[in-house]
C-alpha cells in the first residue's frame, strides 16, 4: 500500500501503526501470519501518522507550512534539507497525485536513507532526492516550483537559489529557523531579493487533558441558631443550579481541560514570503 492512499485491509509488507494506551503508538511492518489485533480492536493502516514518527510535535508547524505555502494536489515544491523526511512525506501526501517534490539534502547518509524510505513507501515517482549543498548548488531546477521550503542552518544563503527555483510568475517561500538571528538575516536576504509579504510567525500547540476533578467543599462549621443572610453551606449549594454534574459528600466533581504541566515552548520561527512577478 502506498503512503498516499488509504486501503481497507492491512496487507503483507504494509506499515501499520499500533496504539497502546493514551500516548503510546508505534509503527509495525506487517508480516504474513503476524497480528496487530489489540484488545481495543484492529488498528488499520493510517498513513498520516507514519509521516510524523520521528518528530511527532512538528505536525503543528507542518500544518501551518502546508497552508501558508498554498500546497495542494499538483503543486511543485522544493525542499532543503530533507532531514528525517517528516515534512517531505507530508508534502508528498498533499501534492499527490500530480505534483512533485524536489528535496535536497546536504548529508549523504540522510539523503540515501530518505531515498530508500520513499521507495519503501511507494512514493518515489512523486519525489526527487538530491545530495548537494543547497547554498552552493541550489535545487537543481529552475522556474518550476510553486513553493520552496528551507530548513537549513543558513537559509539566507539559499534565498537566491530559492528565487530561481520558483516559477517566473511567482510563488511562496517558507524558512524554518530555531534562532531569531537566523530569522533576521533571512528576512534581510528575502527583502534584498525582492520577496514581498515577508511575515514571521510562531505557532505553539497547547494540549489539554480531559479529567474528572473532585474539589473538596470546605467545612465552615455550623452557623448555630442563626442562619445569616450570607450563609453559604454545602447543603444548599446543590439546589442553586450549580455548574457541576455531581455533588456528593462535600465534594464538587467536574470535567476540566487541564493543560499539560510541560509543553513544547519553541520549535522554530516560520518566515513566509511571496515572490511576485515584478
Amino acid at each position, binding site marked *: 500500500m502506498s503512503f*498516499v492512499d*488509504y486501503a*481497507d485491509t492491512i496487507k503483507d509488507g504494509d506499515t501499520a501503526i499500533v*496504539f497502546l*494506551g*493514551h500516548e*503510546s*503508538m508505534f509503527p509495525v511492518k506487517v508480516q504474513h501470519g503476524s497480528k496487530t489485533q489489540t*484488545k*481495543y*480492536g*484492529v*488498528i*488499520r*493502516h*493510517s*498513513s*498520516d501518522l507514519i509521516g510524523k514518527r520521528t518528530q511527532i510535535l512538528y*505536525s*503543528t508547524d*507542518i*500544518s*501551518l507550512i*502546508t*497552508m*501558508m505555502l*498554498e500546497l*495542494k*494536489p*499538483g503543486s511543485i515544491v522544493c525542499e532543503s534539507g530533507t532531514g528525517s523526511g517528516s515534512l517531505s512525506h507530508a508534502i508528498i*501526501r*498533499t501534492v*499527490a*497525485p500530480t505534483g512533485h517534490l524536489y528535496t535536497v539534502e546536504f548529508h549523504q547518509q540522510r539523503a540515501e536513507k530518505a531515498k530508500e524510505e520513499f521507495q519503501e513507501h511507494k512514493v518515489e515517482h512523486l519525489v526527487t532526492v538530491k545530495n548537494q549543498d543547497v547554498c552552493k548548488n541550489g535545487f537543481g531546477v529552475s522556474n518550476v516550483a510553486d513553493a520552496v521550503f528551507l530548513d537549513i542552518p543558513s537559509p539566507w544563503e539559499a534565498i537566491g537559489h530559492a528565487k530561481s527555483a520558483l516559477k517566473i*510568475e*511567482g510563488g511562496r517561500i517558507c524558512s524554518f529557523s530555531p534562532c*531569531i538571528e537566523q*530569522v*533576521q538575516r533571512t528576512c534581510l536576504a528575502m527583502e534584498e531579493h*525582492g520577496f514581498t509579504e515577508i*511575515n*514571521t*510567525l*510562531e*505557532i*505553539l*500547540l497547547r*494540549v*489539554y*487533558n*480531559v479529567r474528572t*476533578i*473532585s474539589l473538596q467543599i470546605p467545612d465552615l462549621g455550623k452557623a448555630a441558631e442563626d442562619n445569616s443572610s450570607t450563609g453559604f453551606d454545602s447543603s444548599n449549594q446543590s439546589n442553586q443550579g450549580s455548574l457541576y454534574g455531581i455533588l456528593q459528600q462535600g465534594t464538587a466533581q467536574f*470535567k476540566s*481541560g487541564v493543560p499539560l504541566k510541560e509543553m513544547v515552548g519553541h520549535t522554530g*520561527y516560520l*518566515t513566509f514570503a511571496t515572490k*511576485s*512577478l*515584478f
Partner: protein
Amino acid sequence: MEESAKLGLRIREGDCAVLKRDEVFKAVLVLRRRKVIFEKQWFYLDNAIGHIYGTTFEVSSGGSLQPKKKMEETTTETKEAGTDNRNIVDDGKSQKLTHDDIKALKDKGIKGQEIVQQLIENSTTFRGKTEFAQDKYIKKKKKKYEAVITIVKPSTRILSTMYYAREPGKINHLRYDTLAQMLTLGNIRAGNKMIVMETCAGLVLGAIMERMGGYGSVIQMYPGGGPVRAATSCFGFPESFFNTLYEFPLSKVNSLVSGTFSSETLPSEPEYNVPVEEESNGSLDEKQTLIQETEEESSTEAVMESNETEEQETMDLAAEDTEYKESKEKGNKENIREKQRKQQERRRKLVETAALLEEKNADGLIVASRFHPTPLLLSLLEFVAPSRPFVVYCQYKEPLLECYTKLREKGGVINLKLSETWLRNYQVLPDRSHPKLMMSGGGGYILSGITVTVEKVQSDASSLEAQKNEEPASKKRKLQELNC
C-alpha cells in the same frame, strides 16, 4: 505548462479576486464599470482584467488602476536625523498643513507619494526625530496617502485570513492556523471521501476541496434549507470540482442511520419550501451579488485626513441573506417545468448521496459548526471507516470536554486529543525585532481522534477496558497528587 493552468494566472472578468493592501484583504467580483471601495479608496477594476494575479496597481485620478512599476523605493530626500527625543515637546502643532490643505492637494490629483513629501517638509519636528522615528513617520503617512493595491488569487490562505480579520462571526471565529491544523489532522488529500459539517460560510468546505484538488468526493451535511457556500464560491474552483461534491440534510441523518430513510418523502417536507435554486454551486448568479454593497459606501471619506481609528468596511461577499432573497425572486420568475426538472435532479442526487453515506466507508469527518458538536459526532462517525481521522472544531472549550467524554463512553475511537494553538506574529527589522504588540486571544479549540473497529461481541467490555487503560499509571499518580 498546460494552457488551462496559464489561464488561471490572469485576472478575468467574472473571477472572484482578492484585493490586498498591507495586511488587509477584501474579496470582490471582477466586473467592468463597477465602482469598488477598499480601504477608503474607490476605483474600477476594468484595467486589471488581463493582468497576472499578484500584480500591484496604483489608483490614479478617476479611479482607474495602473500597474505599478517595480518598487522605485522613494528615498524622500537626504534625511537629517536627530539623535534622541530629548528635545521634542509634543504640542500637537508640529504639522503646518491642515486637513483642508491636504484635501486640496488630493483634489488637484497630486499623487500620494508627493503628498507625503509635502507633509515631511511641513513638519516642524521631523528633522529632530531619530532615524527610526523618521522611518516610522514616513511609513505611516505613505500607508495613508499612497493608493496602492495588489490583486491576488483566492486561496485557503488568503480567504481564511480575510474572513478571520473581517467577519470572524461568519466562520465561528475559526482562526486560519486552526483551520490549517484541521486540514492536517483530518489528513485531507486527493482521493479521499470526506464528510464535512460546517457552518463557516463554506470556507472549511472550500479549504477541503482545494486540498483534494478535484480527486475523490466530499459530502457536505447541512442544517436547514440548504448548504451555505458563499465562501466556497470565492475559491474560483473549476466546475469539474463540483461534480464530486454532494450534500445531505442533517434532518435525515437519524433516519439514514436507522435504515428508514426514504427520498420519496422528501419534497413534501417543510424544510424544502425554500426554492432549490438556492443551492447553486458557485455559479455566476450567486456571485453577481458580491459587490452590490460597495456602491452604498460613502466615497468622500477616502480622501479625508482624520484621526479616527480605521473602521473596516463590511465585506462585500458572503451576503447570504441577500443572495437568498434574490434567488427566491428569480425562482418565482422561472417556469415550473424547469423547477420540476431541478427537483427531480435534486432527489436523484440525494439518493446517490444517501448511498454514499450508507457505505460507511468515509475517509474522515470534519465538523466546524455553530451547533453543539456532541450529537453531530456521535451520529456522523457512523459513516466513517475504521482507522480514519476525525476533527471537530468548536469556538468554546466546554462543549468539546463533553464531546470527549461521550466519545470515550461510546468507544470506537482512540487517540482523542483536545488542543488549541497559539499564534504569534513577529516584527523583524534590523535592531527592532519583537513579537507584534497585539495578538489573537484565541483561535478556537480542536478535538481530534481516530476511528477503530470495535467488534460487536466484546464491544461493551472492551470500551470500558480501553477507558481504563488509556489513563496510564503515571497519570493516575499525578491525579492523586493533585487532589491530596
